[in-house]
């Protein structure tokens, strides 16, 4: 299915969301460095185009299932950065009442059925979301994000097969960022592309440049359209890169600086900005203003979050059961 390219307004919107994600991640990094965050976190710096290009292809009532590296997906699906930041700081008014934190932020109302601490853990769940959509006949679509490393879990295999045989409206989006923690993708599988595995399920597969939000958006729009029309699932691989370490304990001995620099030179935000300014769609000043807006929104979110109350330990046992 050929799809129309995004119009200028959409492109500016995508730039705005990518900037917001970047600002969120940079702030998260800073908070962690300051010792203000408990636990760990996984930053998606460099991967913004995937979250944004895919989610821009969705309706508000569509679903996503996210991963441990999920801040970007969450924002791209329309979450409120204030409530996200509050969750990140473990506050009572955060998305998960401070129970979830970075690795479990969910915005169920907004269609984000949650980040997931388990590699590939969301993929089987996505089949159920797809089945439920099919049975309720609502015309929704479910996107399941996962990493290159997740593609070697049994859950990946079972879930893709189930979605394929039942023609479920699920788009499986692989963020191939070259590594699973320290494991390079080429040592973890003997195929060139994760999307080469689509044929094993009789479903369409595609690989796109995950540093190009327009390419991601086009491919996602096509896959989402097919899913919505009853054409079944797609495996969409977006080739991308994470700029930072896997998590905070990572000394990155498995890769060189040159490699990181080479990928940074393909930065998805710089690329879209350059395109929009070259096209005359944005002036440099307007583009700078967008970046400043994003930073301001995150500063605002942080101020909001800081002012929020901590959960009361007396509420510890709430919400284990419905």
């Amino acid at each position, binding site marked *: 299915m050929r799809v129309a390219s995004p119009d200028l307004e959409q492109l500016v919107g995508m730039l705005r969301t990518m900037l917001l994600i970047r600002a969120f991640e940079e702030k998260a990094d800073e908070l962690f460095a300051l010792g203000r965050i408990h636990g760990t976190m996984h930053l998606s710096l460099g991967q913004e185009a995937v979250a944004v290009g895919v989610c821009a292809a969705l309706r508000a009532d569509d679903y996503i299932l996210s991963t441990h590296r999920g801040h970007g997906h969450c924002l791209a699906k329309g979450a409120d950065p204030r409530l996200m930041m509050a969750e990140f700081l473990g506050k009572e008014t955060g998305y998960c009442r401070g129970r979830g934190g970075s690795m479990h932020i969910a915005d169920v109302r907004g269609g984000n*059925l949650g980040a997931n601490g388990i590699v590939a853990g969301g*993929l*089987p769940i996505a089949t*159920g979301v797809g089945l439920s959509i099919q049975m309720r006949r609502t015309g929704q679509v479910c996107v399941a994000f996962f990493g290159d490393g997740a593609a070697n879990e049994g859950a990946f295999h079972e879930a893709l097969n189930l979605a394929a045989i039942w023609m479920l409206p699920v788009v499986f989006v692989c963020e191939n960022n070259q590594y699973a923690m320290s494991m390079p993708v080429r040592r973890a599988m003997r195929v060139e592309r994760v999307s080469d595995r689509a044929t094993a399920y009789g479903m369409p597969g595609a690989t796109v440049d995950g540093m190009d939000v327009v390419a991601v958006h086009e491919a996602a729009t096509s896959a989402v359209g097919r899913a919505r029309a009853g054409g079944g699932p797609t495996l969409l691989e977006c080739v991308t890169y994470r700029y930072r370490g896997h998590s905070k304990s990572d000394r990155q001995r498995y890769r060189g600086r040159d490699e990181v620099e080479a990928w940074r030179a393909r930065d998805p935000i710089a690329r879209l900005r350059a395109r929009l300014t070259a096209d005359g769609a944005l002036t440099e000043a307007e583009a700078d203003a967008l970046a400043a807006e994003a930073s301001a929104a995150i500063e605002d979110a942080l101020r909001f979050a800081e002012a929020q109350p901590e959960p009361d330990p007396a509420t510890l046992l*709430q*919400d284990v059961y*419905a």
Partner: protein
Amino acid sequence: MRVLTYAEAVREALRQALADDERVFLLGEDIGVYGGAFGVTEGLLTEFGPERVRDTPISEAAITGCAIGAAVTGMRPVLEIQFMDFITLAMEQLVLQAAKIRYMFGGTARVPMVLRTPAGSGTGAAAQHSESLEAWFAHVPGLKVVAPSSSADAKGLLLASIRDDNPVIFVEHKLLYRTRGEVPEAPVPIPLGVAEVKRAGDDVTVIATSVMVPRALAAAERLAADGVAVEVIDPRTLRPLDAETLVASARKTGRVVVVYEAVKTLGIGAEIAARIAESEAFYHLRAPIVRLGGQEVPIPYNRRLEAAAVPQEDDIVEAVRQVMAA
């Protein structure tokens, strides 16, 4: 009242739930035309069609996740795992996802699903088809665990499980499928979390689960002839456990035998014994709390070894005599 087998009682609950609520559907391996490995879903495919009685490939993790995803988005799936042993393939989805989603998400989601599965030994199916793993699930906050011992309980508890808004592990026992008992026709749920005194008595409390309940009742009958009045209690729900009823009986009789098929160490009887030992009943105990659980072995194939691996009626009689003598 009508008499149904335990399998028929389960089927009736499924049929009524399917008829009552369009969000309910069944999924599992060979539950359609085959009727399930133990024939429990026999006929439901014809009645409700392949969308609501859905055969799946052999993918225990994915079909469990499928139930979770459907539950989170408004359906009420009832999943069959063909043998309880195979639940080992779905532990991540059950324990790290289904049980935790609600809590991790700060109460913003719920996972109303039931996982039905046949458990237990006694059919000669050996070590990988005879597991009794309910204690694992009873260890997990966020899950409920139900184990009916009669046709009536099977029906009523299954209806309640399907109406419950939480993930419920519903443990059926293979040897009970053909046992018979009276079952009301109307779809009346039996509340989860409530133990039942299956036989009243003052001398000794026998707490038994699943297939051990009929064995305990038979043993109690024999012991009555000797003048020993055995109180037999079935917790029915293992999580949440109705400790109050168990403790009250222990307090009354001062003598407790806990009987369960699972491996003795860390089977449900460990928790029951510990609950009583930490309770007020402690001060009323007249003898050590006896646990009669499965032997510390995988279930063997040979019929005599298999029978020796789990408590039998004679063992219960013997244990009660011992605790009376203590």
